[in-house]
């Protein structure tokens, strides 16, 4: 399999994924609120997208984060965690295919964040339905987690344009963020 990223991009994605996993495991102890994991996830995925500037960067970051989390045995561990990190990233990348260059960077990141959050909450909904939870209760939990996660995800998305602009000011990005 030939991967389209050059080594430097791949390494940056890997570092971001590792940092995401570690920060997530450290923050989890302090806060009791569900949905705050969407903040870090959205932030690092969108940073990867902004820095590498390619479709597929977010999926790579998500899958790597899942693998690293599995290896470091962070969180509840186990094979399910791959899905947990990978699914929102894949949804965001898929959405990016349809709206590349459609909005300004700020709105693009917000829409992407909401889509990622939808995938995240949707995964919870599907697993709850599979388990046999009644559909009303599952929908109520879905709505709750979407609202909580969405607030965190949008907060992260709002930070992205500024961070990218500052990275560009340090001459670290190949292309100016629009």
């Amino acid at each position, binding site marked *: 399999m030939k991967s389209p990223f050059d*080594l430097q991009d791949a390494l940056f994605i890997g570092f971001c994924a590792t940092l995401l996993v*570690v920060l997530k495991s450290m923050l989890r102890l302090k806060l009791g609120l569900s949905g705050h994991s969407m903040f870090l996830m959205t932030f690092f995925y969108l940073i990867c997208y902004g820095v590498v500037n390619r479709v597929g960067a977010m999926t790579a970051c998500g899958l*790597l984060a899942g693998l*690293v989390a599995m*290896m470091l045995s962070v969180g509840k*561990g*186990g*094979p399910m965690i791959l899905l947990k990190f990978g699914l929102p990233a894949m949804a965001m990348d898929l959405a990016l295919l349809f709206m590349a260059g459609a909005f300004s960077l700020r709105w693009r990141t917000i829409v992407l964040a909401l889509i990622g959050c939808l995938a995240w909450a949707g995964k919870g909904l599907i697993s709850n339905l*599979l388990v046999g939870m009644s559909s009303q209760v599952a929908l109520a939990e879905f709505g709750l987690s979407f609202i909580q996660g969405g607030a965190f995800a949008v907060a992260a998305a709002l930070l992205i344009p500024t961070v990218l602009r500052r990275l560009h000011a340090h001459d*670290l990005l190949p292309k100016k963020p629009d």
Partner: protein
Amino acid sequence: MLVNGRKASKMAVFRISATQYCALALLLSLVLSSGAFFLPNSALGWLILVDALLVIHGVYLKNKISALLRLGVAQLALTLPLYYLIHGEGQMLEGVIVVLRVFLALLPGWWLSATQKPERIGEVLSWGLPAKWAFVIAASIGLLPYMLQETKEIYAIQCLRGANITPKALRNPKNWPELIYCVVLPVLIQLLKLSKQMATAAKLRHFGCVSKPTHWPAKREEE
């Protein structure tokens, strides 16, 4: 020494290696996790029995299960009131079963991470990964202590500078953007520089120029 080595190799014929054992454990936890979702209610008792064995194994190896139990209780506290509000008292038992299934789905993962070494899981995963991504994962995990050290130093320096990012100040969500600009942004800059340096170093050693990359032998810890 030589006799010992021969003995070990003879034993290895009859015994599966640590890596194969880890692959089996990974498969088992995958099967048990999906079993929690798809098995009918009548078969749930057997699943509980198997998972109880896993818990005994994990606790026997001196691992803590309290975090997982706390998660289960939190899930119960969220789901049961919702069931009560929407369906009334009659279906509370169903809610308990749902939470039990979620808990049973998480248990094999806990057992896997409690009993298997991370590097063995990594070896199993690298069977299916391309060489470049395996290198990336190995590099990120290997550099993790360095990254954490760097992050801690930046945090300490920014605290000395008077940024509002002490644990007490972070209770106020108003200070969270400051954490991003003071700590995460410098860390990102460091990571970008680090990845550039590592890529240059690896390329100078002809990384990716040969189709079959060589590996440092990883069998040293197998007795």
